[in-house]
Each structure stands twice: as structure tokens, then as C-alpha cells.
């Protein structure tokens, strides 16, 4: 591809790339940076792509790496008081779903036709709100696991977490998302 062909091919991708990065990085400017870097890297390699599809695959792979780099960088920074406070509160709220013997205080109930939700635009807005509502650490681990599709062992290694710590964070993310979707979408009380 010529650089010109490439730039028109990737400009179509840009909104999608941004949305992908934004949900995971949770801040518009780092998402913008990651996308910008991925696109720049692609322009430098324009000559080696056979078509738009190959270029897209390549740009997404680069973007994923940029996101992981950013996660790695963030995981090395000491957690701020506000973040650790939010995480603490979140963990406590999840615990409050159970009584002192560890049984549900109010039983979760089945969701009505969840598959049908996947076709609804509004569902995806709620889904993104719920992921955005998780505290930084559980959101990061869950995002790497389920949105980037990485193996748990790889995630723990990248973030310098013990396996059991990773599991705890994933468990909290799942309980939190379950609760959020129940309340905000499936109308569980």
C-alpha cells in the first residue's frame, strides 16, 4: 500500500480504535496517544501491507501492545489514596451482598433473555458504563483478560501480581459487573 492508501484505510478504523482504547485506558488523552502511536507506527510500515485488512490487523495488534505498555507503566506507579479508597469501598460493597456466614442476603435472579441484549445499542452503553464504574485495578485485570483476551498468567506477570491476587481482582470485577448489569439493565432489585 502507498502511505496515502494506508491513511485512508486507517482513518475509517480510527473511531473504533479510540473506543477500544478508551474503555480500557479510561481516559481520553491516553487513549488518543495510544491510537496516535499505533497509527504512526502503521504509516511507517505502509509498504509492507497487502491490503486494508492486513493493515487493520496490524494496527490493532500494535494498539493492544500500546495499551499493555500503558497498563504496565501504571501498575508500577504507587496507587493514589483516592484509588485505593475507591477499591476498598468497592470490595466492601461486594462483601455486603453476603451475610456473616457467606450466604446471599438477597439471591441474584436469572436475567431475562440476555442474548437478545447483545443486539441492542443501549445495552452496550450500559455495559461500558459498568466497566467504567469498576475501580482501576479490577477493571485493568478484567480488561486484559476478557477484552484483550490475554492468559491470566501473562497478565499477572505483566502487572507484577501474584496469581491469587489476579484471581481476587477478577472475582471482584465479575461480581461488580454482575451487580451493575443486574441493576442498570436487567432490572433486578
Amino acid at each position, binding site marked *: 500500500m502507498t502511505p496515502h492508501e494506508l491513511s485512508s484505510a486507517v482513518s475509517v478504523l480510527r473511531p473504533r480504535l479510540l473506543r477500544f482504547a478508551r474503555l480500557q485506558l479510561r481516559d481520553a488523552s491516553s487513549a488518543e496517544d495510544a491510537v496516535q502511536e499505533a497509527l504512526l507506527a502503521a504509516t511507517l510500515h505502509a509498504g509492507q501491507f497487502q491490503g486494508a*485488512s492486513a493493515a487493520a490487523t496490524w494496527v490493532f495488534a500494535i494498539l493492544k501492545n500500546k495499551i499493555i505498555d500503558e497498563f504496565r507503566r501504571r501498575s508500577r506507579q504507587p496507587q493514589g489514596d483516592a484509588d485505593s479508597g475507591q477499591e476498598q469501598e468497592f470490595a466492601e460493597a461486594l462483601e455486603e451482598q453476603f451475610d456473616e456466614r457467606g450466604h446471599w442476603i438477597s439471591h441474584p435472579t436469572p436475567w431475562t433473555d440476555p442474548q437478545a441484549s447483545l443486539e441492542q445499542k443501549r445495552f452496550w452503553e450500559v455495559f461500558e458504563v459498568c466497566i467504567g464504574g469498576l475501580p482501576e485495578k479490577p477493571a485493568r485485570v478484567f480488561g486484559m483478560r*476478557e477484552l484483550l483476551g490475554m492468559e491470566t498468567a501473562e497478565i499477572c506477570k505483566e502487572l507484577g501480581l501474584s496469581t491469587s491476587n489476579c484471581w481476587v481482582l477478577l472475582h471482584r470485577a465479575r461480581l461488580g459487573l454482575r451487580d451493575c448489569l443486574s441493576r442498570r439493565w436487567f432490572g433486578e432489585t
Partner: protein
Amino acid sequence: MLSCREETELMSQRFERPLSFGERFGLRVHLLFCKGCRATLRHFMFLQTATRAWREHHDQDSTHR
């Protein structure tokens, strides 16, 4: 027998590692008697389906399939 809270940990780890025979057996028995945990397991499974669908939609695969 494990509590619901502990069973939800196993239900989550089920996506990360193979559970042992004892864990699977205990979970199965627990699920027979616990509506809340049965619903929760389905919810966890749906979360995985939904995140995969999200990923495929935003990933390159769907654009040029």
C-alpha cells in the same frame, strides 16, 4: 460445604484454571440447592459472552470478515 461467597470465587476461577474434582463436585452439589449461585454462574458466563462480542465488534476481525 462452602458458602455462596466462596463458591462465587470458584465460579470465577473456573474461567482461569481447571477446578479440581473436589471443587467441581462441591460446586455442583451447592448449585443443586442454591438458586442465587445458579443465577450467578449464568451471569458470569454471560459476561464472558458479552465481552467477547464487544471485543469482536471493536477488533479488526469484524471489519473485514
